[in-house]
């Protein structure tokens, strides 16, 4: 191999280039290994949860004798069998038992687990429990909870700037309204699963599909009453997570681990989809009461909002989720005077949790409703109202939480999209079409998103990585992030390849394991590559420094004369292949392993005062959607969507486009066909894909154009000036919701905001049409 020649060609798989997912071939051949595919050791047992069939009741008698006696059953676990603490509350509030003891607080709450020789046997046995309940009154949604005085699961937050009350009373126009926004099931294709293998002493290894291995590790240690160093959590990949596997896997990991230690056999737990959806948390539903004061031009003077959330029976992540709803209640708009309150309501439903956007989308949709209200009131194009209220300069740049918006590109994004999507002409054509008075009405909307990037729990903004270079030049990397389809490992391998100037395929990233990188944060808040990429680069740089020092000494030159070329290293005039260079470094006893670390700079947040800089930077985007609505049935089609999204300088454009498209469709699903429906007894009846309808291929916009704002660069010093991509584009789906509203509004000649609630199922759309028909 001609070293000279290779040193002139760029490395394969550098940053900023399109590179396919590193597991793509394994995905399509079925060889990618998920937790349930791991070969089971002889004697592996299977656990299954016994779930409550009451929304709120005292447990008068729990008779598990028939469960124990069922064929294949090895034993049963209840709270009494837990060696440590019967709690998996992620925030230490001690409000989330693994197994309910005196009472159950939602339909589907785990009360026990049965362990059997096969999963089928365990599942059948779980149904045999004889439970005597004493019913207690239940409240299922935030409004019922407020009426029943259920209280908060976690302290509420207030954001305040200016004098909302007095500004509101002085405003030329005021509108008060209510918006109900439904929750959302994650519907990751791979459900919850954990597989524990006992070891010597206190040790246990748990293979799982969790987004947060470190937390699972700490929980399992807690539950087993052993130090964290006895517990290893491994995650090769997830079949989707979307936030649903951030805290919710703690319970499954714990049950598997307790059983594995108790019987000293491998134990796997995998609920059926119906039980997965009944027993694990979802996106929070919100009821939002808003008021806005504005002038004749539709420019906002004051906004107040009360955000009541269905948190479920325990706090889980509801604190930060409802906080984030408030952080995003401004979306891209400046509110001169503002007062926002969260109401994290306790309800007798499953404890809601993280889901892509983490409360942000529920805040953003409130802001967009306010824009709509103003537009219909002032008879303006809603895009015009949006533009008039964008953050700007001259004091119009401070958020309700007192962070200054320094990187505002929403106006440029929206303007470019307005032009490229031909928004004005199409809107005009739609108005003309609707004026014909047919039963098919059309609507169009262009909505922006501004999304704050960082964990609002500041200490989460840290990451670690462990990098080894072997003497043959191949590189092995572990980092704290987990792979759930987003292509995190691909991006991080690109970063390391770039730093070390070796081909991408020299780098192997293996499963995430708590043994390699400790105290990691959840792979969440879109932060995966921001944080872990930096940590990986830090590790690579440490080794490079050692290599440079070695080369300078060995070849007796200046450190400046050592250059890392593509797959080669130049020392003075001499060029050698990376492989040879590494070999020499090894022979010279250079330490070729390093642990990298990163923490996000600049951020701080004081929840008590509601002030600070919780976000390192913002990611932006906009979508323009056009819909057709059948006003006789409420059915609709998304005719066209154009997206322009900001990922800064993309690390991998093709993967980022994939994230944007996927997030958009998921956001659209949240607001259209995905409906969570509880019956009066509190049972979730949409608990499987047969009843819970996520978008299909045929629900995609008929025309779908997705572009990245290639000119954008992060103002902050992120990895190669990139921006996070996981969550922000989810909110682009709001454009579909607003377009549906626009089509419906045509029924009353746009005089009235249709006040569509979400999800806008065909039923809600038709009922809004009938309402406007009067």
């Amino acid at each position, binding site marked *: 191999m001609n070293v000279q020649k290779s040193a002139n060609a760029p490395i394969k798989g550098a940053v900023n280039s399109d590179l396919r997912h590193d597991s793509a071939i*394994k995905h399509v*051949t*079925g060889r990618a290994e998920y937790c349930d595919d791991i070969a089971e050791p002889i004697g592996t047992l299977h656990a299954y949860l016994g779930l409550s069939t009451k929304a709120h009741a005292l447990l008068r008698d729990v008779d598990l004798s028939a469960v124990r006696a069922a064929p294949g059953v090895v034993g049963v676990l209840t709270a009494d069998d837990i060696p440590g603490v019967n709690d998996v509350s992620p925030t230490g509030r001690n409000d989330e038992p693994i197994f309910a003891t005196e009472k159950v607080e939602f339909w589907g709450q785990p009360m026990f687990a049965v362990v059997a020789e096969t999963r089928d046997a365990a599942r059948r046995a779980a149904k045999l429990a004889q439970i005597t309940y004493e019913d207690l009154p239940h409240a299922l949604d935030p409004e019922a909870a407020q009426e029943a005085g259920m209280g908060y699961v976690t302290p509420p937050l207030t954001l305040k700037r200016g004098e909302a009350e007095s500004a509101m009373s002085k405003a030329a126009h005021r509108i008060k309204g209510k918006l109900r926004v439904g929750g959302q099931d994650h519907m990751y*294709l791979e459900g919850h699963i954990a597989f524990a293998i006992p070891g010597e002493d206190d040790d246990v290894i748990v293979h799982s599909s969790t987004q947060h291995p470190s937390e699972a590790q700490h929980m399992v240690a807690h539950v087993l009453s052993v130090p964290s160093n006895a517990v290893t959590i491994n995650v090769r990949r997830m079949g989707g997570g979307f936030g649903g596997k951030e805290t919710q896997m703690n319970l499954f990991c714990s049950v598997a681990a307790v059983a594995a230690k108790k019987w000293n056999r491998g134990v796997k737990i995998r609920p059926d989809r119906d039980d997965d959806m009944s027993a694990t948390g979802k996106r929070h539903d919100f009821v939002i009461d808003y008021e806005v004061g504005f002038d004749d031009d539709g420019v906002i003077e004051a906004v107040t909002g009360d955000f009541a959330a269905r948190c479920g029976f325990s706090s889980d992540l509801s604190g930060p989720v409802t906080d984030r709803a408030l952080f995003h209640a401004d979306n891209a708009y400046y509110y001169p005077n503002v007062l926002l309150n969260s109401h994290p309501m306790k309800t007798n439903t499953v404890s809601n949790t993280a889901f892509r956007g983490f409360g942000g989308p529920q805040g953003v949709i409130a802001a967009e409703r306010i824009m709509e209200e103003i537009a219909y009131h002032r008879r303006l194009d809603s895009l015009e109202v949006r533009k008039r209220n964008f953050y700007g300069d001259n004091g119009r740049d401070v958020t309700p939480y007192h962070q200054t918006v320094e990187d505002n590109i929403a106006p440029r994004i929206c303007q470019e999209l307005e032009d490229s999507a031909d928004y004005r002409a199409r809107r005009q054509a739609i108005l003309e079409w609707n004026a014909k008075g047919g039963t098919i009405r059309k609507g169009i909307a262009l909505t922006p998103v501004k999304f704050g990037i960082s964990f609002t729990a500041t200490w989460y903004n840290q990451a670690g990585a462990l990098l080894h270079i072997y003497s043959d030049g191949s590189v092995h990397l572990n980092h704290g992030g987990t792979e759930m*389809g987003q292509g995190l490992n691909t991006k991080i391998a690109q970063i390391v390849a770039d730093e070390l100037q070796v081909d991408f395929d020299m780098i192997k990233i293996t499963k995430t394991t708590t043994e390699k990188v400790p105290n990691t944060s959840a792979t969440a808040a879109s932060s995966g590559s921001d944080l872990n990429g930096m940590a990986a680069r830090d590790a690579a740089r440490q080794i490079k420094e050692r290599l440079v020092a070695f080369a300078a000494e060995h070849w007796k030159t200046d450190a400046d004369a050592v250059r890392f070329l593509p797959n080669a290293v130049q020392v003075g005039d001499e060029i050698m292949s990376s492989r040879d260079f590494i070999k020499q470094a090894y022979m010279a006893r250079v330490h070729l392993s390093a642990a990298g670390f990163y923490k996000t700079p600049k951020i701080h947040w004081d929840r008590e005062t509601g002030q600070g800089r919780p976000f390192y930077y913002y990611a932006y985007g906009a979508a323009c959607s056009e819909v057709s609505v059948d006003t006789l049935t409420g059915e609709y089609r998304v005719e066209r969507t154009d997206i322009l999204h900001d990922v800064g300088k993309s690390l991998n454009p093709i993967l980022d486009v*994939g994230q944007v498209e996927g997030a958009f469709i998921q956001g659209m699903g949240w607001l259209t066909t995905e409906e969570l429906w509880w019956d009066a007894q509190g049972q979730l009846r949409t608990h499987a894909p047969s009843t819970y309808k996520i978008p299909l291929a045929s*629900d995609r916009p008929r025309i779908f154009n*997705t572009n990245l704002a290639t000119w954008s660069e992060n103002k902050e010093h992120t990895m190669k000036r990139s921006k996070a991509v996981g969550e922000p584009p989810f909110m682009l789906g709001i454009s579909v919701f607003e377009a549906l509203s626009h089509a419906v509004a045509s029924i009353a000649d746009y005089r009235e905001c249709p006040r569509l609630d979400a999800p806008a199922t065909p039923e809600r759309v038709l009922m809004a049409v009938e309402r406007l028909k009067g």
Partner: protein
Amino acid sequence: MTTRSEIRFVLNNRDVTLDTVSASDTLLDFLRIDRRLTGTKEGCAEGDCGACTVLVGRLQNGVLRYEPVNACIRLTASLDACHVVSVEYLSGPNGKLHPVQQAMVDHHGSQCGFCTPGFVMSLYALWMGNPEPSETEIETALQGNLCRCTGYEPIIKAAKAVTAHGSPADDALTLERAAMTAKLAQLRDGKRVEVSSGGSRCILPASVDDLAEVLLETPDATIIAGATDVGLWVTKFLRDISPVVFLSHLDELRQLDVTEDEIKIGAGVSYTDSRTAMSDDYPHLAAFWDRIAGWQIRSMGSIGGNIANGSPIGDTPPVLIALGASITLRKGGVRRTIPIEDFFIDYGKQDISKGEFLESISVPRPAKDTIHAAYKISKRRDEDISSVCAAFNVTVEGGTITAARIAFGGMAATPKRAAHAEAALVGAAWSEAALIAAAQRLGDDFSPLSDWRASSDYRLQVSKNLFRKFWLDQQSDTATNRLSA
């Protein structure tokens, strides 16, 4: 009658013989647990996500056909004399990716990858039969596959690109077709098959006459056609369905005869196989058929099962009632034919006795001067269960409505005709006003339930509106009144 007491089929390139099979054993568990072929995934265990999609090839009238099916609800015993193809079979022994796989890789069709094997299998089935599919054909083929990550765009692009990577003519299943046909023919030895495991019994009768006999012998048996309903009794309700008697393997029950007067559909005919005959006569049914379930379910599920299941929300009963179809039931050697609407007595109660089975369905050929429409209203357009299903069959002679058969699903405890609305139409002029007036009578015909699919108010409102829609759809300019396909 000699019986055979083992199930024999081909899995990829291996012969499988099973002598212990229970009624509730599924193909998915067989693949994943027994054979550790873990490429096929479980996402829902109810036929709705497609992660478990495999191909099943079987002989029908001597011709080998491969169709995508949901392994999660495909009962193992029903695979006798079939060829099961799982994702592991696709890439050649040298590891070369199959054209479908290569296209998916090139177009970034996977993110988390969990849905991917299922998509690969559906696209494989599509490409084999239709190497240059239109976007609509791709979407229709993928109605039974959910992806939560990609938003589908890259998968559609991949689907369009498969043929660029290879032709079905060079595909393994094509090349081994003759040999496989011979092999499956040989496996089908014309014997009754009986297998069991732990007391749970499965019977595959040798012929329709044998089926009649088996049912007389075991009148409490669960009859299974495509198992797209029964499969869920097993995977979701953990019901003991033994003994079971399968019928979909019987060619005799999969015949479809179009005579001068009727379309005669054997009880085992699948949705897929009945589509052409039905839509040739009744063009409005083409789009309607495509909205029943997804491709996998349409390949498995039978019209007979849709009727016999007796559900108030099955999609074909309202249509068949409106068309004036009749069904033939058989017990032993005795047959009786009844109008299909008389079959549905009440919720969970049909006019069928123990030991009796549904043998065929007769649909009259189109009558003169009739106007037809069928509507399915559901939360999601495709692969969803109807909130309301409505079928119209109105005879208009000289501008006057002389007969009306209008049937609804989702509006009552059974699929049911809207008697009051029909009566209001007969004798009226064929006009928008007459339809709107008739719609007002629906409140006398139905008081629908509220559930997770729809509220009572919506069901009634949309049903009324469908009368107007029916009118508008007959007008020459439908552009402002009909959603794009």
